[in-house]
């Protein structure tokens, strides 16, 4: 099968596109990010968090803050390395089952899905049938 991930050494990250995507949903997403009270009540609603012996990196809030949160913090000025780090968080550490619960009403799945959209916009997404050092299957 053809490989569609761009040659990351030669192709530049289209930060303009990332910025435009971030701006499109800025109001809602930044509001969600600022509402997070770090109460960690979302943690135990994540089956991956429970499965991996309560490893904090599987907490829904951690995943959102370290993916979408960082994208906003960096205002979209990111590189391939950063996008690949996010790829691991939003695909490997989250299956988007939609069962995470936030008592304040932050909709975590839509934030993870949005982070995926941004990463996808740079043609970065899991290649499930290819063995690579970063493959998690």
């Amino acid at each position, binding site marked *: *099968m*053809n490989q*569609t991930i761009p040659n990351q050494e030669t192709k530049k990250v289209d930060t303009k596109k990332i910025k435009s995507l971030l701006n*499109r*949903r800025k109001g809602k997403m930044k509001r969600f990010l600022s509402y997070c009270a770090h109460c960690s009540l979302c943690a135990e609603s994540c089956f991956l968090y429970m499965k991996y012996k309560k490893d904090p990196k599987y907490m829904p809030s951690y995943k959102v803050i370290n993916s979408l949160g960082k994208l906003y913090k960096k205002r979209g000025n990111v590189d391939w390395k950063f996008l690949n780090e996010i790829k691991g968080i939003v695909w490997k550490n989250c299956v*988007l089952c*939609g069962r995470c619960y936030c008592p304040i009403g932050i*909709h975590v*799945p*839509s934030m993870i*899905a*949005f982070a*995926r*959209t941004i990463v*996808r916009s740079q*043609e970065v*997404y899991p*290649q*499930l*049938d290819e063995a690579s050092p970063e493959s998690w299957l």
Partner: protein
Amino acid sequence: MIVAERKPLDEIKEMVKSYKKLLTVGCGGCTSICYTGGQREVGLLNEDLKNSLEKEGMATQPDSFTIERQCNADFYPELDEIARNYDALLSMACGAGVQFLADRYPEKPVFPALNTIFVGIDKDVGWFEENCRTCRECFIGETGGICPVTRCAKSLFNGPCGGTSREGKCEVSKDTPCAWYEIFKRLKDQGRLENILKVKPAREWKNQTRGTMIHEAYQKRYAK
């Protein structure tokens, strides 16, 4: 998971060729996992479509966008903004996803780019097998975890037909194991062979009607 395969290119072309602005919508769920409807496959289909339609002098311009799951409204807001700019949508989700997409944008023509084949398992990379017909009356506890509805060519409930070969293969094909032979072996190994003698009543084939399921805990919320 749901397994699907891409329709022949000519069939897809026939459906979409009269629309100038076409959006091919990928799905990050099951069809992405079975390598038929994810972001990569959307790109490949659009390449094929572009090349083929250009040769025929058609003006269709396919663009692409992939959402995480076409069967869940939570993942649609980003697509909402994009979809309005297109004349038609070509979905690379399973049949459920295509219908959900069509319901979401009732004013747009929506076309399926895939044929949904079955509910199955990942046997190996790129190898999927059907294991469930969603008959809604699961009784594989009595058949050693092997479903004769799915794996027997005749979907027989109460033992094999007379067509099992000495090697335990189905009369339909020498490469297909007889489901009831497999059940016999499994139950024998488990010391539960008496199960095979239990006569199972006729099924109701509930999956012939459209299914709706509201989880017990949510019944109050959706009560009319």
